């Protein structure tokens, strides 16, 4: 239980840093989605199922879709 939360926390921090530093915007969006997904697991481990359900549907699902649709509409994948 403790080891699993440590691993999840480390991967969460790494994915957040990659989301900030990535050259391609689409990599940032996918990494943001990954960090939301890991946050869901940590919320479940912290016994907060309400927050976990909201984070899974809004943070990992809907926000990613909105970001990808916006990227498609802007028509460029690279940050300036």
């Amino acid at each position, binding site marked *: 239980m403790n080891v699993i939360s440590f691993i999840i926390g480390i991967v969460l921090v790494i994915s957040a840093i990659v989301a900030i530093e990535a050259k391609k915007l689409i990599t940032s969006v996918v990494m943001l989605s990954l960090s939301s997904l890991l946050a869901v697991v940590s919320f479940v481990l912290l016994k907060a199922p*309400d927050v976990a*359900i*909201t984070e*899974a549907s809004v943070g990992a699902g809907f926000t990613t*879709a909105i970001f990808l649709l916006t990227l498609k509409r802007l028509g460029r994948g690279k940050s300036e």
Partner: protein
Amino acid sequence: MKKVVAAIIAFLFFVMFVSILNSDSKSLMGIPKFGEVNLAERVSSRYISKSVSEDAGEIIYGETNNAESGSANMVTSIVVNYRSFDTLGEVTVLFIATTGVAILIGGGKRQRLAISVNPILKISARIIVALLLVFGVYVFTHGHLTPGGGFPGGTIIAASTLLMLVVEDDKRVSKLLKFLEGSMGFLYVVIGIAGLIITGSFLQNFLPTGTIGNLFSAGIAPVVYSIIGLKVGAELSGLLDDFFAEEEEK
């Protein structure tokens, strides 16, 4: 007709503000004069001094009747019972955000996607969309019993809309959703004003709380969560539909 409804709403707000500011009347629960506040009647003081360690009676799932809040999921009892005014504010923020997106990019014809979709994928997507819709409705109607509630339920409904919009090339979201969104926001305020009239506080629970664990329990909590779920689902579906509209020629 519109002007009459607007006049009625403006009059109700006028009555609400006057009743809040009226310091003399006891019946309208106005703001008392300076220095004459009875702190023992205030909500925060009541909940701070409320004892939790002394005998509050054992609470048994499925048997306890007429509890103060009555919802089995305690997060829901905070979100749509004690702090319902905050939730009204959240719903308003989401409404303003989707309106802004609709003003910026909405209104065009349906955009054709560059990919061709397999018929097997189309038919299986229809089945999944039906299941997702039912699951979304389940999540927000059982918000007071199980984890979940109006906001996740509405987002799950919007996810089914997204799947339908990606797979079907010529589908658009129904115009009725705009009407549903507006009328649900109106109903939320109507429930709040009904609480103001019946009990004396805006959005206070005025229905019997029933047995803990039943579907029809916890007073107005399931009603309010159903309203929020339908409103959020309609809003986010409209938002996705705006993203699938064609861009205007400059």
